[in-house]
Structure formats: C-alpha cells, structure tokens
C-alpha cells in the first residue's frame, strides 16, 4: 500500500500507472472466509458503539424503563398477585428483565431500518464484505444495551428490597442468559427491520410481536391463574422459559432444564431469522 500517492503529477512527466487491473482480478476471491466475516462484524460493531456514544438518547429505553417499570409493576400488581410488594419481587424482577431486554431488541430493528436509509449503507453494499456483517455488527454492539437493561432491573429490584437467594453467581447467570436470549430474539426484529418500509412501520409491527410475547408469558402472573388455552401458549412461549430459567438462577441458584429450553429456543430463532434477514437485506435498497 505504500505506492499510493495522490499528489499532483508534474505535467511534463506522466508517471507509470500504479494500479494493475490484471493483478486485481487475479487477487479477487469469490467469497469471504469465516474469519473475515467475524472481523467485519466486529468492525461494524465498533461503528455502532461509536454511534451510541454520540447519541446517548439511544440508552433511554434501557435506563428509564427498568427503573420505571420495576417500581410501577411492583406497586400496582404486588398486592393483587402476591399479597404484598416484597413477596412479589422474586416473581416479578426476572419478568421485568425479560420485558426490558425484549424492548431493547425491538429498538435494534428500528435502528437498523433508520440506519439502512442512510447513504453509508450504499457503500457497505458495494464493499466486498459479508452481507451478514452490517446486520450482525449493530446487534453485537447492542449486547451492551441488553447488559445495561438486565443489570439495572436487578439493581432497582434490590433497592426496593429484593434479595435474590441465588447469590451473585445466580444473578450473573440470569443476566448472561437474558443477554444471550436477547441477542437471539433480536434477529426477529432485525428481520422486520430489513422487511418494513419505514422505521415507524418497524416499530408498529414490532409492538404487535412484543406485547403477546411479554404479556402472554409467566412474566407477571403465575401461570395457573390463566385459562387452559392461554396456559398452553404461555408454556411454549420462549419468553416464559427465559423467565423461569432466570427465576431458578436468581432465586435458587439452580441451573434448571429451563436454561436448556431457552438456549434451544434462541438457536431456533437464529437459525430461522438470520438467513431470512440476510436474504431480505440483499434484496433491499
């Protein structure tokens, strides 16, 4: 790369060409390797992190929501569901973690849509990079947002008097599981982001997905209070498995089978929605 020189050539002495098309054609490889794909994804994640730092309002949903929802849900539902606020917290805190992480996932899709409308995505498309990198990069950066959302909810709960019996390790395990699951489920919203025509429609469609996923789960109420047909849905909802797994981890310090089910559900979501997203991204623009 040391041959590059853009300074004006002396008009009298045209210099010999430094670009050799034949060599470039010979060098050009038919596809990216896995190592290149990973490195490109990390570069895109670096870009997304830079943007986050310059756009701090991107953190509103993962900072305000845990504080607000934890307090709100505890005081509104606590008495009705568990008799009092204190005994509701162990049931509710993992539920709120699931909900806030899912909301953060939704923002992943909305922001991708906004981002894709910018000119720079034209350049990303014209570069010889893996098509998945511009999608997966921001999602890797969003792990930070899931981490903030999950930790802040636990902290708020503890300030309100929640003491997780699972100990530090149990809580850390629950947070880690929430982040991993958040990353998997974010692929659904990324797919919506590549599909929809505007950021608003991404938001609209995502809301329709988000509400059934969070409220038709065991996040806020015990499942046995639900009618039978609803209970069936709640029991297969991956969000229910995530929340049960987090309760076992944070409240009892046990790694139950629910952890396995949650990870499996995450893998299934990635296996379906990652290829769909890349396909739809290829067609778009």
């Amino acid at each position: 790369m040391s041959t590059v020189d853009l300074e004006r050539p002396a008009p009298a002495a045209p210099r010999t060409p430094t670009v050799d098309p034949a060599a470039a054609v010979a060098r050009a490889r038919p596809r990216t390797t896995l190592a290149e794909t990973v490195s490109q994804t990390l570069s895109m994640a670096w870009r997304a992190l830079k943007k986050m730092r310059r756009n701090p309002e991107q953190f509103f949903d993962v900072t305000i929501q845990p504080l607000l929802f934890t307090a709100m849900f505890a005081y509104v539902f606590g008495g009705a569901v568990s008799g009092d606020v204190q005994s509701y917290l162990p049931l509710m805190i993992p539920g709120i973690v699931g909900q806030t992480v899912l909301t953060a996932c939704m923002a992943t899709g909305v922001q991708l849509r906004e981002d894709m409308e910018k000119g720079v995505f034209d350049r990303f498309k014209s570069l010889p990079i893996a098509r998945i990198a511009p999608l997966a990069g921001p999602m890797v950066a969003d792990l930070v947002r899931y981490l903030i959302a999950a930790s802040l909810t636990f902290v708020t709960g503890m300030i309100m008097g929640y003491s997780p019996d699972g100990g530090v390790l149990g809580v850390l395990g629950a947070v880690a599981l929430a982040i991993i699951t958040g990353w998997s489920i974010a692929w659904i919203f990324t797919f919506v982001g590549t599909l929809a025509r505007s950021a608003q429609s991404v938001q609209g469609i995502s809301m329709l997905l988000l509400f059934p996923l969070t409220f038709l789960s065991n996040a806020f109420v015990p499942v046995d209070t639900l009618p039978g047909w609803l209970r069936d849905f709640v029991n297969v909802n991956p969000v229910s498995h995530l929340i049960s797994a987090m309760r076992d981890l944070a409240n009892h310090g046990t790694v139950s089978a629910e952890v396995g089910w949650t990870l499996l559900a995450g893998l299934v979501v990635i296996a379906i929605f990652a290829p769909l997203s890349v396909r739809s991204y290829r067609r778009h623009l």
Partner: protein
Amino acid sequence: MHQPPAVHATGLEKRFGDFRAVAGVDLEVRQGEIFGVLGPNGAGKTTMLRMLATLLPIDGGRAEIFGVDVVREPHRVRQLLGVTGQYASVDELLTGRENLRLFGRLQGLPRADARATADRLLEQVGREAAADKPLSQFSGGMRRRLDLAASLITRPPLIFLDEPTTGLDPRTRGQMWDTIRELVADGCTLLLTTQYLDEADQLADRIAVIDRGRKVAEGTPDELKGSVGESTLQLQLAPGADAALAADVVERVLGRSPVLTPESGRMNVPLPAADEAADVLIALRQAAIGVAGVTVAKPTLDEVFLAITGHDAGEESQTPTDDAPAMEVAR
C-alpha cells in the same frame, strides 16, 4: 496479452414495474480511460451504475467488469471497483478519520495499515477533513471528497463516480476535477455520470448520452459538441426592429439561419467560434437594426439533447437542467 475492457455491458435492462428505467444499453469502457455518461435527471444513469456496481439486480442483458461477470461473481466484482455515490456515502455520525478507518478495516487492512491509510488520505483530501468531528458538521464539498477518498482505500482499478460535482460550488468542483484527473494518472479507469456537458467535456475521453433509459449518442466530447456548434448566439432585438431583416443579416454573416421567436423579438443561432459574435453585431449596426441584448452561451446539455433526441432534456426530469454553464458577454 489480451486486456478485457474495464466495463463491458450488453443489452443492460432495469424495470420498475412497467417503467423501463434502463432499456437495453450497450456500454464498453476501455482500461485507463475516463468514460462519461451524460444525461438529465431520471435518464437512468444512476440506475445503470448501480446495476454495474452490484447494488441493484440486473433485469436483462449482461455485464462484466474486467471480464468478471457482475451477476455470477458479485463478490469478486466488488473487489475491483470503488463507488462514490450521488449523495456522500459516508457515515455522518463518525469523523472523517473514523469513516476511513472503518472502510479500511472492513476491506481487510490490518489495524495499523487502516490507520496509516486513513491519515494519508485525509492529508490529501484537505486539512478540514482531518478535524476529528462528526461529518454532519462538514461542508458538502468536503463530504464528497471524503467519499471519494473512501473509494480509494484499496486502490481499486475501476472507480464509479455518480454525479461527483452536482451541487458543489465552482471552486470545489475544480478541486474535485483535479483529484479525478490524478486518479487516471495512476492507471485507474473511471466511469462517471454527469448532468453537465461542461464536466464531461473537461474530464471524459469518451461520452455516452443517455436519455429515457437508452443510449442515444456516443463519441468524444468534440464529436458531441460538433453536433450543436461550439456556442450559441442569442440576440434580443430592440422593440420595433425588423426581425426578418435581422435574420437575413445574421445568415449572411454566419452562413446559417437563426431560430426565431418573433413574438419576443429573440433569435438563436449556432456560433462556430465565439469571436464571430462581433461580426454579427457590426453587421447589425450597419443595417441599423437595434439590439437590446446579446448572449454567447456554450452548448448546454439541453441543446445537445435537442440536437440528438429532438426533445427537451428537461421533459422527463424532476428538476430542469437550467443551471448548465453559460457565458454571458452582454446584457
């Protein structure tokens, strides 16, 4: 050794519903030349470029870049070309340095190389660009040049420039032209689209004129301009002047009959050389015909269009190309 052309396209086609944005264009760009694609807004220039750059699927025909098929091997094609878009395709929230480093890293440069390349390109683009503030605070011209710099990181042998100077002030346009010329001195092949005949004239070795998705003419700038004359003389006669007599006088001096607009007392005539305008004015003075205004204009895209296609360039475009450069000598 046989050298494949930089761009070889046959019957290139793009449909949007019933609308054929590009309707069967053949294009051949030789290695090392600057090839200009000239046409008004909406003619299909950008669509064509985007298809060649793998940014849009090709609906019909074939295209090869240095002999590599665009449809079958898009990833290889992307390694052979740099695209600088109509709207700066750089990240507004990042600084110039961060942008260039990102694009370098994405294309496989090691961290240190990406940094060094970014620094060097920034120096060449201008001092302002080196400032570490987000691009959204930069001028349009600087963003455009950074965009061009971003296309140069890996030294691709072919560079697409989509209307590189649209909307730039004359000084910035001149700087852009200098950079473009230097690129070719390095052995790059350039394919550029433009709405300005002037720009194509300044830069391109050969020009294709595109209209409504079709190629309507191709040749060197001189050949193209020859079809409409070097310049146009526009005369505004004084009120009450005899237009028919004036037309006779003009025809006697220049050997061509002017196009009259009798209601407004205006006439246009192609002018082989600009200084012949003086001969016409003297002849008119001697014939005692009053003249209210004189303009000598270089051929505009509109006139080239009118001459080649028989219709106005502005007809199908969203914004008329009324900003084509004109040289006014009197009023």
